[in-house]
């Protein structure tokens, strides 16, 4: 599995999900506390992230591909399945809802000289925490597919696209349907994790790499079925509550 396009797509989409949260935090802090310290904090967070990707990327490239695919595939599967579940539950419950701008506790514009450490720490933590998950996806997908460069480009492109959009259109960023994006990325991570982890154990897939498409179709079907079941259950629950209200 050495094709560049799937690596670019999966790292772009996975990074975009976290980038939306990251940009929302940075934009929320910048808008409420002022931009200078917020951007310094965000830049510091990005510098630490770049170092993590560089160090882990080099370390992972020295590990044999079989065990690497098993470990990375298993981690992608666990992480992807959590997102898959969250995506199903959220899309079933709220449809394509976005996320709210983070409300900081101390929402005052900083007018003094020097660094506003509240803004710095909030932006730094926001970038680093959300970015760690981006770094993990970029390094693991890139190393497992032997396409670390393409993975870094995919992850970086998502950050740039969402960042530019966030700066230009603050209101648009918080309305991007994160629940749906989370569902899509959860399905993609599960698909690649399901393929790589058994391959790392020496399992042969019927049809070779084309099995990925079969896994993808299976998981899309599973998502649609689960969402339909959950929506029907919620509908039935609403009717029961209404009837209980009438009988009282």
């Amino acid at each position, binding site marked *: 599995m050495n094709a560049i396009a799937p690596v670019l797509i999966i790292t772009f989409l996975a990074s975009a999900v976290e980038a939306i949260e990251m940009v929302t935090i940075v934009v929320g802090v910048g808008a409420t506390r002022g931009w200078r310290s917020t951007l310094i904090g965000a830049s510091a967070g990005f510098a630490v992230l770049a170092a993590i990707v560089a160090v882990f990327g080099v370390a992972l490239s020295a590990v044999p591909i079989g065990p690497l695919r098993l470990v990375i595939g298993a981690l992608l599967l666990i992480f992807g399945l959590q997102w898959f579940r969250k995506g199903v539950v959220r899309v079933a419950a709220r449809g394509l809802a976005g996320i709210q701008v983070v409300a900081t506790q101390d929402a005052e514009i900083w007018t003094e000289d020097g660094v506003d450490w509240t803004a710095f720490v909030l932006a730094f933590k926001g970038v680093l925490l959300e970015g760690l998950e981006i770094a993990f996806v970029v390094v693991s997908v890139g190393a497992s597919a032997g396409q670390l460069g393409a993975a870094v480009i995919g992850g970086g492109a998502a950050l740039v696209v969402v960042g530019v959009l966030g700066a230009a259109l603050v209101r648009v960023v918080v309305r991007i349907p994160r629940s749906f994006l989370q569902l899509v990325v959860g399905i993609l991570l599960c698909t690649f994790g*399901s393929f790589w982890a*058994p391959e790392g*154990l020496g399992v042969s897939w019927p049809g070779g790499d084309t099995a990925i498409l079969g896994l993808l179709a299976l998981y899309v079907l599973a998502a649609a079925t*689960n969402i339909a079941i959950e929506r029907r259950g919620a509908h039935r629950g609403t009717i029961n509550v209404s009837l209980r209200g009438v009988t009282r």
Partner: protein
Amino acid sequence: MSRVGSWVIGFGRFWYRFIIGDDWIVAVAVAVGLAVTAWLNAAHVAAWWVIPLVVIVTLRLSVQRSKRARKLVIQ
């Protein structure tokens, strides 16, 4: 606590959140699924179907568990 100590705890928390997350059953199911896959593969039995089956079953279980957890919070 020292800065190194809090960094180690933070790093541990990140991995706990990453692997265990909201539902430990996911990590356990994947681990068991991979163990079964390895065992079948060692016995020269086709094992490619195990993980997709684990994903489908675990997804359903985990969605139901999350629904139950939300109901308990509401009550």
